[in-house]
């Protein structure tokens, strides 16, 4: 039977400051930022924890959705009037008048942007995800958890360091159904 080479540890802290100190200490012990993840019940900025900036695609996806929405608006406002079997001439307005076109394009652009922003959260966060995951429910009670992926041989060293930094508990993380 072979032993796994890496292990996931889950350290729980009662407050932000010791968690930030612990992250610094972990880095000093050679744990790379990519091997850490912070789980919290409130949004904690990367700067507070001294963590690298998180990448998000949500604004780009939103922009893409806005462009799609605008295209749909252009289609409805400019092209669909030509699809009528009997073209509708409204009063003395030109066949494709400007102001109503602006309204249609605005609404569809916003709809495209907001729908894709919503979908962007799903795509970037891999929602919905109902597989077993490493988590402690105390997080939603205000605790800060650090999930660390480290070589098995470093487990004791890292556990001791985290305990020293004020962790309430440090234990191997087990994936569980939430």
């Amino acid at each position, binding site marked *: 039977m072979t032993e796994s080479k890496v292990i996931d540890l889950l350290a729980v802290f009662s407050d932000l400051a010791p968690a930030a100190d612990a992250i610094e200490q972990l880095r000093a012990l050679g744990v790379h930022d990519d091997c850490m993840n912070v789980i919290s019940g409130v949004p904690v900025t990367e700067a507070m924890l001294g963590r690298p900036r998180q990448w998000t695609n949500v604004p780009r996806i939103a922009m893409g959705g806005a462009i799609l929405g605008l295209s749909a608006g252009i289609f409805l406002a400019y092209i669909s009037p030509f699809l009528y079997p009997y073209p509708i001439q409204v009063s003395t307005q030109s066949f494709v008048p400007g102001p*109503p076109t602006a309204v249609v394009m605005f609404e569809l652009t916003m709809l495209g942007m*907001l729908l894709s922003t919503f979908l962007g959260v799903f795509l970037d966060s891999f929602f919905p995800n109902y597989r077993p995951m490493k988590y402690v429910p105390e997080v939603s009670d205000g605790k800060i958890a650090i999930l660390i992926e480290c070589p098995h041989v470093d487990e004791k060293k890292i556990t001791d360091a985290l305990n020293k930094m004020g962790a309430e508990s440090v234990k191997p993380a087990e994936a569980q159904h939430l």
Partner: protein
Amino acid sequence: MSDNKHHADAAQSHEEHLREKHLMLDPLPRGRMNEMVMESMMEKPTWKFWLVFGFLAFVVVYFLFYQWGVLIVKGQGEAGVMRPDYWGIFLVNTVFWIGISHAGTFISAILRVFKAEFRRPFTRAAELMTTFGLVQAGFSIFMHMGRVWVFYWLLPYPNQRMLWPNLHSPLTWDLLAITTYLLSSTMYLFLPLIPDVAMARDRSTGWRKNIYKVLALGFRGTEGEWTHLRAAMNIFAFAISPVMFSVHTIVSWDFAAATRPGWSSTIFGPYFIVGALHSGMGAAVVVLAVIRGTMKHMDYFVRGEHFDAIGKLMLIISMAWAYFFFNDYMVQWYGGDKWTQQLLHFHEAGPLGWMWFAMLFTNIVLPWAILWNPKWRANPWLVGFVGIAINVGMWFERYIIIPISVTINRMPFTWRMYTPGIEVPMGIGTVALFILLYMAASKLIPLIPVWEVQEGQMAHELKKFGRETVVSVSELE
């Protein structure tokens, strides 16, 4: 020595007063706040709750759905709409409910953009109003539509009939704007709900856990999840505000784009928006007063300071509404058009002139008389009463703009007073459905966004400037 002690005592009492007054300065452990919100939601409903719930359910079934069935079977003749009043209470209610829905976006998005901290505990309560209000608005439009089973003819899609909706028509813009707003506000309600549903998932069992588990989507609160959520909420807060403005502007164009006396007005867009905010804020304060008065622990989350803050907004909005009303009235009156003069006279001195005066009383006189006083403004029931009065007044305003105004037109031989029929019980049914949905939501959804409250509490502290203790807020984002 005694002077020093006196100062110290006074400072301590001032600090205690500030903590008691401001939720953001009176933090409880997060676990305790979670417990309070869960208890308020999962508390066993009393017989009074079931009595009200059952009564409302009966009203919804009989007044809304049964009568709607009657309307469909017998036709629009059951309603009082007839030449020249083809637009009756169904459209009054549509405009009214869209107006109510504006409070959610105003409180949640615009106050979020401006970082108004008092918004934190009641953003969700307001967002729910938006979604449930839009459901009633949608129902009201469908009632007005008559042949509701062919509603999909409004949708632009390639079809065998080779028909496309006429996108030059303000009514089609309505479809686009209301659909955009309904979808956006529902998504905007759901996004900040995810962390709270995850909290509820961690604390519940049985069928509730299964529901929350599905709704929480697997949210844990990792750095990435928060980053994506925050980015999305920022985009929503900025983007949904112009959508909100566009919706009621477009609703106003349904009227203003026509060349009827009383309707053809360039100021109708902003006038309608301010009116929507007026009724929306009024409804929000009623909901808050009821939540605070009837749900467990809500007096911790919703305090006098919140009613005071909303009361100030209501006062300012009331002033803005008065300004727009007078501006619209002045221009129409000064224009001297014969039919418009006739209509304005009919508003004030016609058989429903009392409604015109009641509108001015409840929208201007009453709010100004009560909301100027900070002590009265912090009283939930008093501000709630003003909120109800404003909503009655704003409903009157829409009634005056729609069926009363179409009575007087340029063809006197068609003049006829509008007498509503089946619209009245159906309108009451929409009110009952709105309250019913809210009551159900209060038992299923955490009404307080606990994480937002905790975030606000982390950012607030008391700071000493010389001998004075003041509230200080840090910008955490």
